[in-house]
């Protein structure tokens, strides 16, 4: 099996996550948009930590910055740190139940959001609203489904 096996599928799921992040939704739902990129990237880093790690995170973060019109490097920074934590603890995360994983994902989403906020705070005089943190909840709730779907994809195409 070539080392590049399945790379296309991994990238495709990441592109889909990026697309869902910029997809316009009605105003009331916007605050509950799950952090799709963190979910998908988090799964691949947990499942294949030797293949998908900080390199993927940095590039994905850069594309996310470009898509959202954020200062370049902000999302790269946050995702690199989050992915580092996941890869360092991938054995632990793999062996706990789905809802415990969801709690960890919730914690990581919050950390991700706070890093982004702090980094932007260095550049602009912005303030945080409670609305900004609502999506942590939706990200936690959707983690089990993302996990099951991506695991099915991984097993179906035997991506190792």
């Amino acid at each position, binding site marked *: 099996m070539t080392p590049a096996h399945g790379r296309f599928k991994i990238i495709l799921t990441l592109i889909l996550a990026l697309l869902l992040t910029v997809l316009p939704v009605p105003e009331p739902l916007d605050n509950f948009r799950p952090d799709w990129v963190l979910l998908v990237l988090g799964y691949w880093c947990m499942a294949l930590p030797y293949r998908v790690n900080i390199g993927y995170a940095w590039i994905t973060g850069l594309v996310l910055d470009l898509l959202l019109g*954020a*200062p*370049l490097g902000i999302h790269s920074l946050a995702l690199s740190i989050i992915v580092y934590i996941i890869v360092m603890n991938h054995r632990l995360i793999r062996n706990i139940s789905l809802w415990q994983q969801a709690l960890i994902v919730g914690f990581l989403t919050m950390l991700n959001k706070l890093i982004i906020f702090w980094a932007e705070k260095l550049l602009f005089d912005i303030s945080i609203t409670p609305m900004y943190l609502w999506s942590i909840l939706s990200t936690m709730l959707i983690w089990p489904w993302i996990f099951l779907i991506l695991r099915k994809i991984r097993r179906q195409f035997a991506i190792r």
Partner: protein
Amino acid sequence: MKPIFATSTSLQLRLFFAVIASFSLIIFDSKFDSFSNVRVYLNTAVSPLIYAADIPSEMLKGVSNTVVTRRDLKKQVTEQRDKLFIQQVQLLEFKHLKEENKRLRALLNSPVHSDQRKLVAEIITVNTDPFSLQVVINKGALDGIYIGQPVLNEQGVVGQIVDVSATYSRVLLISDISHGIPVRVQRNDIRAIANGSGELNSLTLPYVPHSTDIQAGDVLVTSGLGGVFPEGYPVATITDFNYQMGQPYAQVEAKPIVALERIRYVLLIWDDKDNTPDTDKEETL
């Protein structure tokens, strides 16, 4: 399977490089103007994703356009015909005034306003960074859009271009926290700066002495100072002028004239370089 890195120290090294690279990007991108050229290419590379994200709302728009009833359309046509008629009549007067204004300005040795190049762009509805107020429009560097270009609509000033790709660009709205626009009060020509507040419908005017003659309801128009926005376009109306004893300045708040949450089309104007010799002549006099 051959692991990419043997030990976890290599992972820490990767994190170290990623953090250094991110910080240098953040600094380069926000502090150095020369980096914006690189951004044009990067933006162009990711533009297919932006257009893909816009497809669902384009389709919805298409559906809502096709299910309009015949009666509504008829009503719309009648209304627009009437509106056009009234505006044509006003245009006759406007032409006359324009000529007169040109002659008077020539008499006063003031620079003459000439027709500027204009372009209409449509808003692309995509999600953007939650910490900045911006919209994406469907015109880019290929249409001649440049960074710092003023963006208006039929009501007044919308914002300015901050980011360009080949086929789309980003408009920073006037109420963004990092945006400031030089204005003057239409009633008495008092000059001020209107800063964005970070909330869509609010601007603040800093450093206004408490004795300044500004009242709620005053209209602020662009002053033309600063060189980004042309003179005389409506920006905001004053909603609150408040002075508390002991404070060095008054607290002045304004509301943008353009309904920034509902814009669909914007107008881009080009600074006409052909009429600058007039200005130069005036300055050397």
